[in-house]
């Protein structure tokens, strides 16, 4: 395991310990006084009505999928950016082709109104 990886490993462990510790300590030390009124969901002071059990509108799903698609595309740019110097021109054109293909998809989605939030 080269030196950099130990750094990342230590950072991960430290973060996990601190975050986990805060959550665990809070639940242990904090006193709990559950009363029926307190446990009811908060609806601006009224009895809760009509929580949506059924399916949600399609619009939410559409936007989520588009986001994931272009987010993953972005993730692929990171390794390329690190090795940008030694890949040279070949790497550059390769990445532009990759981005071009996804751009066609983006234009298609935009054109079909998937981005409009009716």
């Amino acid at each position, binding site marked *: 395991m080269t030196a950099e990886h130990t750094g990342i490993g230590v950072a991960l462990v430290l973060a996990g310990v601190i975050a986990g510790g805060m959550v665990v300590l809070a639940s242990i030390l904090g006193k709990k006084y559950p009363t029926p009124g307190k446990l009811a969901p908060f609806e601006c002071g009224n009895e809760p009505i009509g929580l949506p059990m059924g*399916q949600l509108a*399609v619009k939410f799903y559409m936007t989520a999928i588009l986001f994931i698609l272009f987010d993953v595309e972005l993730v692929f740019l990171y390794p390329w950016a690190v090795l940008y110097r030694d890949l040279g021109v070949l790497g550059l054109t390769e990445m532009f082709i990759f981005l071009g293909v996804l751009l066609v998809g983006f234009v298609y989605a935009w054109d079909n109104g998937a981005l409009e939030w009716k």
Partner: protein
Amino acid sequence: MDATTTQAGGSANLETRDMMLNIGPAHPAMHGIIRVVAKLDGEQIEAADVDIGYLHRGFEKMSENVDFNGVMPYTDRLNYVSPLINNVGYCMAVEKLIGLQVPERCHYIRVIVSEISRITDHLTCVGAAAMELGAFTVFLYMIKAREYLWELVEKVTGARLTVSYCRIGGVKADLPDEFAGPCAEAFKETRKVIAEAHSLLTRNRIFVDRMEGTGVISQEDAIAYGITGPFLRSTGSEYDVRKDCPYAVYDQIDFDVAVGSKGDNMDRYLVRMEEMEQSMRIVEAAFEQMPGGPVLVNPETGRPISASEMVDLAKLGDIDAVAGGCAVTGPTLDGAGRDEHSSIATDEKRAFLPPKEDTYGNIEGLMRQFKLVMHGHGVRPPVGEAYFPVEGANGELGFYVVSDGAGYAYRVRVRGPCFAIMTALSKLLVGGSLADMTPTFGSVNMIGGELDR
């Protein structure tokens, strides 16, 4: 409203359930006292059922159990953002019922204080609407400007918010001496804040996108819903009670009426900002045209003694210190001095308190004071009914007073301007998205006291 509806349009077979969202009374966007049960399809509001009455405090019932001048504190708390306009409205309704004529200077004082009160209302409304859209800085600036104006109101009436400044037949006391100076000072600050607000908001991409094209209402619909005031003027109609049925001295002061065109939230914001400028113009013009102010009291006879000291000495039985003395009162003491009295109050003996010199000086004044103050006497208008409209900050604020000759009003009905606007709220909300509800409701400027009374 049944909760399951098939999704209309393309995806007919996709059966999505509409969400019933209860935007309850204790919600910051609902100013704390309105409950909207919205049927949401995703973000679109399909139906909105508005539920009011959470601040119904029985104003009309209380005004039947208190004498005519006793209703004054209740009128402050109708539209508590511009209380002086309610005072002026109620007083002018009762004066119309009695048939009283109020001196010219008193009209000017009433115009000045109600215009200052209108500016504080617009400052609060625009500030709160901007804060609900995230512009917290504008809210802080506008409340700062409102503090300057509240200092002015405090100089005149003694209180910041619940002023009870007017009386039937006049005003409590004259303006303090040299009031134009601090007024000009406060207006300079207010104009600076309004300029800052313009630069922060009027071309702000987010603010314009949220306010433009949302909460649109046409002029016919607005009039059909009985909407008046900035809300109606933003749709293009020019109806302003100060211009169409002028009262007090509004016909002698020239000012313009701010009118929008599209009737959306942005226009209402611009109309209110312009109206603040016009109100300042009115106050400045009123200061020039106002008839002579009170000359400092120099009693013809006897040595001047301050009224409170005279009372104390009399209580001690120190007769010679009091004999031959003449009580001198400060200009802002209730009832005011004899010289100011003629310029700020009607001469109808049975409607307005006598000047303090008479009350402490002679028996007629004392009897007149007694007859007006003691329980059961008070002002007793003739039998009759009168409706008097006044231009409130949100629209036409009308008082309908019925009297059966007793010392107590038989019926006082308040026509609250934002009651009519709220009837149109569900129509404004339906079709828009949930995010449009906040700017629309912010520009309605719903004030609980005036809505639920």
